[in-house]
C-alpha cells in the first residue's frame, strides 16, 4: 500500500466515510466531520500507522492534506 493509500484509509476510518478520496489541497472544510477533536484522533492514528511523532506545533500548523503528506514524508514515515 502506498503512503497515499494508507493515509486515505486512515481518513476513511477516522471520519467513518468510505467515499473519501484524498487530494493534496483538501482541508478541514472539505470533510464535515473534521473538527478539532477529530483532528486529534486523525493525528494519533496517523502517528501510530506511520510510526512517527508530531509535536504540538506541527499538529496545529497543518493547513491541508498536502502539508500532512509532506510532514509524514519528512519524518521518514512508512
Amino acid at each position: 500500500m502506498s503512503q497515499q493509500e494508507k493515509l486515505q484509509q486512515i481518513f476513511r476510518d477516522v471520519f467513518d466515510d468510505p467515499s473519501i478520496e484524498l487530494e493534496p489541497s483538501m482541508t478541514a472544510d472539505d470533510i464535515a466531520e473534521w473538527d478539532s477533536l477529530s483532528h486529534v484522533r486523525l493525528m494519533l492514528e496517523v502517528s501510530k500507522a506511520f510510526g512517527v511523532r508530531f509535536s504540538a506545533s506541527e499538529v496545529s500548523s497543518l493547513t491541508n492534506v498536502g502539508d500532512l503528506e509532506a510532514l509524514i514524508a519528512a519524518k521518514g514515515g512508512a
Partner: protein
Amino acid sequence: MQTNIFETLDWLPDAPEDFRQRCKSLAEDANASGREVSALANAKLDNNKLRVLGGVIAKLIANGRTLHPLSPFKLGILGTGTTDLLLPPVVASAARHGVALEAIAGHYESALQDALDSGSVINTARPDAVLVALDHRSLPITAVPGEPELADRIVEDCAQIYAAICGAVRQHGGAFCILQTLASPPEAIFGSLDRSVPGTLEWIIGRVNDRIIDLAQRDGNVLFDVARLAATVGTANWFSPQEWNVAKLAFSYGYVPLYADRLGGLLGALRGKSRKCLILDLDNTMWGGVIGDDGMAGINMRQGDATGEAHLTLQQAALELHKRGILLAVSSKNTDEVAREPFRSHPEMLVREKHIVAFQANWRDKASNIAAIAQELNIGLDSLVFMDDNPVERDQIRQALPQVLVPELSSDPSDYARRMLATNAFEAVAFLQEDKARSESYKANAQRLALKSDAINMEDYLASLEMEIHFDPFDETGRSRIAQLINKSNQYNLTTRRYTESEVAQLEEDSRAFTLQVRLKDKFGDNGMISVVICRAEGDDVWQIDTWLMSCRVLGRQVEHMVLQELLHHARAAGVRRLVGEWRPSGRNDMVRDHYAKLGFTADGEGSEGSTRWTLSTDHEAPRPRMTVIRSGVSV
C-alpha cells in the same frame, strides 16, 4: 510484547469484515435489538470501530430503543482533560458487558463545578452513577519533597474534593460515584526514594489513593482501579507526554479500548451481568496432551516442564475463581470415565472432581453440552465463559451460543490464564461470604439434573437415585410438620382440607382413621417429610381418602405410586375392600385432576363444586417403583 493482549483486547475475536456496514444497517433497523448490538460489540474493536458502534448505540438509545436484553445505565463523566473522545468507546464497550449505556460528559476541567452545581449537565441528567475520572493533574497536587506537613495537607485537600464531589452528585443528581484511583506517572525525581520521601508525587498519589479506596467503600460508591490498569500496561505507555501536550489526553489514546472495556465490565457488574461459571475443555486446555490417547501417564501437567506448568497455571487460576464463588464446569469430547480419571487420581492435577459443579464429557457437540450445563445450573447462557484450545470448537460455540463468552486463545498455553482473566468477565463490585458457598448449593441441584440427562430411561434414572421411602403413622415427632404441610400445600393436594395441629394430634388416637407421614431420602440427602395421607373408615370395608398431599419437590419420583402401594397394603390388612378417592378443585390444584386416574382408580361420579370421586379395589396390583421401603423403621 506481553502488554499487547491488553492493548488490542486480544482475547476477543476479530471484528467481522463488514463491521461498518452492519453498524450502519443496525442504525437504520427499526427492530434493532440488544442482541445484535452485543454481537457487534463482542469483537476486537479499535478506537475507530468503537466510535462507529458507540455512535450507533447512542442514536438508538436517543430514539427510545430499549435494546433489551441490555440493561440501561446512565453515566455522568467528570474527567481530566479531553473526555469527549472517551464517550463513544465507553458506550460501545458497555454493550460488550450487557449494558445499554447513555454517557454524559461534564465540561472540560470542571469536575467540582459540575458536581456542586445542581443545574449542571451532569446533575440535570439524573445519572445512575457519576464516574470521577480525575488524574493527578486535575487535583491540587504539587510535589513538596521533605515537607510532611504540607504533604499531609495536600492529601487532605484532595480527599475533601472527592468527598465534596460524592456528596454533591448524591444530593443534586441522586447518583453514586465510581471513583478512579490515580495512576502514578513514571517520572521519578529521586528514584526509588520517591516512594518513601513524604511530599513526592509518588508519595502523595499513594496516600490520595488510600483515601479514594476508603471513600469508594462507603455510601454505595464503587472503585475503578485505574492505577492498577495503568500498571498493567506500564505507566510509560499509559502516560503519553505528547498526547497530553497536543490533545490533553489524560492517558494514551491507544489504551482507550482497554479503559473502556474495563469500565464497561464494571458497569456490567453493577447491573448483575458478570459471568458466574467457567467451563473448561480438558485435552490441551486443562492439561497438555489427550487423555484418551496418551493416558494418565502421558498427559502433561508436570512441575518443571514448561508446557505442564502452563496448564497448571490455568488450573490454579480456575481454583482461585472457585474460591471466590465462580462455578467451574467441564465440557469435553471424551468418555466420561476416562475424562474423570485425572480429576480423581492424577497426583499433579490441582482441580479435583469436588470443584466441578457440572461435568459434561461425552461425544455430543459442545454447544448442546454447554446449553445443558446452563440448564443444569439454572443460569443463563450469558453467565458462561468457555475456554477451549481448539479454534473450531470456539467458533462453533460463538456461532451457536453467542451469549457465551469464548476467549480467543493462542497456541501457547502459557497465557491461557491471563487471557481468561483479561476478559474481565468475572468483575465483582462486592465480595460477600455467601459467594464462597455458592458452589456447593449449585452442585447438589446440578448432580440431580445431570443424572437425569444421562440416564437412559426414567426407570434407570429413578433407580440411580437410590431412594429410600419411610412410612410412619402420624406421631408426636412429625406432628407440627404434618400440620404445616396440611395447611400450606396447594398444588399437589387432592382435597385441600386444612387441619389444626390439635386436630392432627387427635387423628393419632382415632381408631377409625388411617394416617401416613412419608419421608424420602436419596443418594443426595434427606428430602424430609414430603407426603401426608389421611383415610377415614366408611362402614367396614371402605376407606375414604380424606387427605392426600405431596411436596412438589419430589414430583416425578413415583412417590405417589409407592404411597398407593402402602395404602393398599394396610387396607388389605385391615380387611378393607375398596379405596375411595376424591379430587376437590381449589383453583390451585389442577395438577392433580388426574391423580387417581393415573393410579388406576375408576371414575365414580361427580360431587358438588366440580369435585370428582374415584374408586379402586384393594385387589389392585400395580408395578412397584424401585425404591427401598422402610415401614415404621423396618425395611420391608
